[in-house]
């Protein structure tokens, strides 16, 4: 019995300590936001004596609102394209016996393995030659491409397990594959669409490298690139930097807490 108790204490102790390690930086971020410059410097471990909002006012001057709007536009269109295009392709790969299907699937898995950093120079040259540097369209297109392989794999696994009876009945009724896909498969694919959309939104909202090389004008920067401006503008004014981060991070955390069940589910499916 006592051995059981000790094991229990160790188990709770370990997860509690790890949770403190996770929460501590977020707490530091929020508390620093409200501290005065003096407090930040003299009492790194203390709590703010008053809740000043001057740091927030400074942080907003770097244009966080416009960065967020850009991130929202990029995420919305890219995720919409990724989910639609990947779902369509995965359906064909899982249903129709083309001889080239195996080759296409391997190609897509290869696409999943290629990181943006490995094709950085030609991609930049291409977007530059198309005059799409510093345009949201110019990042939405490549980001969509890089999101497709993983999402195809995700949908493919889902469609393989999908009961085929309904589709067979529809085929007998004279529906084409195109009609079957849009009228029968899509309405029944809610869970996998949600998983794919959540996963891709997190990835695209946070994507850094491609946005960094393609968006150099402040008008088009997405939030991850824009956040760097906080540091440039408010070099050692930690209150302003942390205020900017709080503004950027807290909405994401709230969305995450509301939908955490789905987030966890969509990521947990990866190991299967």
């Amino acid at each position, binding site marked *: 019995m006592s051995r059981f108790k000790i094991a229990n204490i160790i188990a709770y102790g*370990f997860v509690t300590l790890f949770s403190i390690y996770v929460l501590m930086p977020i707490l530091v971020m929020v508390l620093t936001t409200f501290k005065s410059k003096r407090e930040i410097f003299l009492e790194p471990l203390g709590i703010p004596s008053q809740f000043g909002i001057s740091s927030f006012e400074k942080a907003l001057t770097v244009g966080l609102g416009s960065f967020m709007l850009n991130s929202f536009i990029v995420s919305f269109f890219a995720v919409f394209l990724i989910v639609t295009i990947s779902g369509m392709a995965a359906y064909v790969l899982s249903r129709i016996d083309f001889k080239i299907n195996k080759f296409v699937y391997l190609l897509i898995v290869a696409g999943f393995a290629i990181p943006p950093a490995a094709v950085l120079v030609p991609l930049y040259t291409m977007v530059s030659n198309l005059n799409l540097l510093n345009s949201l369209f110019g990042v939405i297109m490549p980001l969509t491409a890089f999101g497709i392989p993983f999402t195809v794999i995700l949908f493919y696994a889902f469609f393989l397990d999908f009961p085929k009876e309904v589709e067979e009945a529809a085929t007998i009724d004279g529906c084409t594959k195109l009609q079957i896909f849009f009228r029968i498969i899509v309405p029944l694919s809610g869970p996998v669409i949600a998983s794919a959309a959540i996963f891709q939104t997190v990835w695209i909202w946070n994507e850094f490298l491609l946005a960094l090389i393609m968006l150099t004008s402040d008008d088009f920067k997405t939030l991850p690139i824009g956040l760097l401006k906080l540091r440039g503008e408010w070099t050692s004014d930690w209150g302003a930097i942390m205020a900017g981060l709080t503004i950027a991070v807290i909405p994401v955390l709230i969305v995450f807490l509301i939908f955490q069940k789905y987030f966890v589910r969509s990521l947990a499916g990866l190991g299967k």
Partner: protein
Amino acid sequence: MNKNNTQTNSFSLSNDKVSATILLVPALIFCTIFIFIPAIGTIVGSFYSYSLTSMNNWKWVGFGNYIKATQDEYFWVALKNNFIIVFASIVLQVGVGTILAAILDRGIKYGRVIFRTIIFTPMVISSVAVSLIWLIIYDPNVGILNAIFKSIGLSTPSKGWLGDPNISIWMIMITAAWQNTGFMMVLILAGLQGVSKEVYDAAEIDGATGVKAFWYITLPMIRNVLIVAILITTIGAFKVFEFIFVFTQGGPSNATQVLGTYIYLQAFNLFHMGYANALSVILLLIALFLGWLQLKSSRKA
């Protein structure tokens, strides 16, 4: 009758082909234009010397860029750092993630969802934001890491936590673990929840409980999930960019470069496009090898 049947079949087959092509083509177009053509461009470009400003002055150098890489001390430093990050990430993220998952699966009764939610949270924060938050923690003047060390009477590194490359690479690891361990935990937890109760009951009859049962029975059963977790972590470790870009910019004197940041430096700061391409091809080969491993292991699963 028979003839009629064949006709319907061939009609519906051609119809299927049209539908299938319409559904498949957009994905292929996107991947071809933005992934495969640039990948080929990277390979072709790696045999030339050219700069960003003079795009038309391509000079054929054969394997010159690759020979340059083998003689470039900083390329080896970057590659070595990538491998350090791979091994440390596997230990810190997959290792600790497995322990956390095991505790949440069977070790504790209360608060599972709360702990899981807290530990998973950093995953949704962008790596740039994560880096900037940790920057203040490591700061030598206002950082809480220094404050904590001083308050318990320990000395702090004289060049700061990010100024000495031998220390800063570990600070990068701690930050990466902070962001990714929860993801590994959730992944492995899903695997653990697939292990049936009967297995544990049978183990208990044989006298295996607690840590023993976990080590000899549970771990082998979730072998596939662990392989996927290790591969995702390895691939992630080769993609590391933001932490280093924000913390050290690869410095001091290139000691904390990784392949990603070194490619960026060569291409967009030094404008050695051909050389950057050659480094990219090396990264590409590593990535494709890891992708092939993943495909093989997922087929087994």
